[in-house]
């Protein structure tokens, strides 16, 4: 029997790794991967808590939903990345600073 807190610590580690990727990576795809890590960390939490909710199965079902959503998100994000590349000729987010005034 694996204690719940172990799952949570692993998911926290995974989340931070994803966060690091999102914050520092110079490549949009890598950032996307970081985001996936973060989603997966969340999914792991769902699943871990879902262990204690067998009857309603909320944890598992929402984990399922989250996975599907993440997949859809990836598809859209990749499409966006392609378009961004077409438009800016780069996928380095630090070079895309049109948000600056």
């Amino acid at each position, binding site marked *: 029997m*694996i204690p*719940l807190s172990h*799952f*949570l*610590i*692993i998911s*926290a*580690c995974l*989340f*931070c*790794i*994803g*966060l*690091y*990727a999102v*914050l*520092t990576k*110079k*490549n949009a*795809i*890598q950032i*996307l*991967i970081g985001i*996936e*890590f973060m989603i*997966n960390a969340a*999914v*792991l939490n769902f*699943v871990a808590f*879902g*262990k*204690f*909710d*067998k*009857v*309603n*199965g909320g*944890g*598992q*079902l929402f*984990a*399922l*939903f989250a*996975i*599907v*959503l*993440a*997949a*859809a998100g*990836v*598809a*859209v994000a*990749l*499409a966006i*990345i*392609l*378009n961004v*590349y077409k438009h800016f*000729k780069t*996928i380095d987010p630090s070079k895309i600073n049109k948000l600056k005034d």
Partner: protein
Amino acid sequence: MNTEQLIFYFFAALLLTSALMVVAMQNLVRSIFLFFVALFSLAALYVFALADFIAITQVVIYVGGVLVLMLFAFMLSNKELLNSLHPIKTSFKFYQLTGIFICLAFLFILVSLNLQIDFSGLNWIKSSTNIKEIDNTTHNIGILSMTRYLLPFEVLSVFLMMALIGAAHLARKDKKT
């Protein structure tokens, strides 16, 4: 330490190592393959949380869908994208430090919070220990998704369709321009 624990920690270590390597890797192709490894080990961890169907789904969707999509995305795209994806030798920058600092701070917060909270003291977790385990999770999920969670399920399906159409629209080559 029994075998179950041993396997669990092995997969956990594999997950964290591969994830770290994914983010530390400069080469995109390699990091994607390592990502593949990380996802597999994550699926393994799900099994330990009594979620076999989720684990299968994880493998099918991520490994069969997302990763393939990613690989195809830059393999099918034009040559310059690939060229620009060549690893750039960068020194250790201030922003990386900042990122590490923030991540560690978050980690510290999450872990410390995790340690502070007594999960087993929670009511619903306490009560759940009395309920008998249901083996057939797949069956249970099927019923639940068509009864209790019908609305989120339908919303999700519509959303999924929208996302796919959007992705297809974004990714297509605009002939007019």
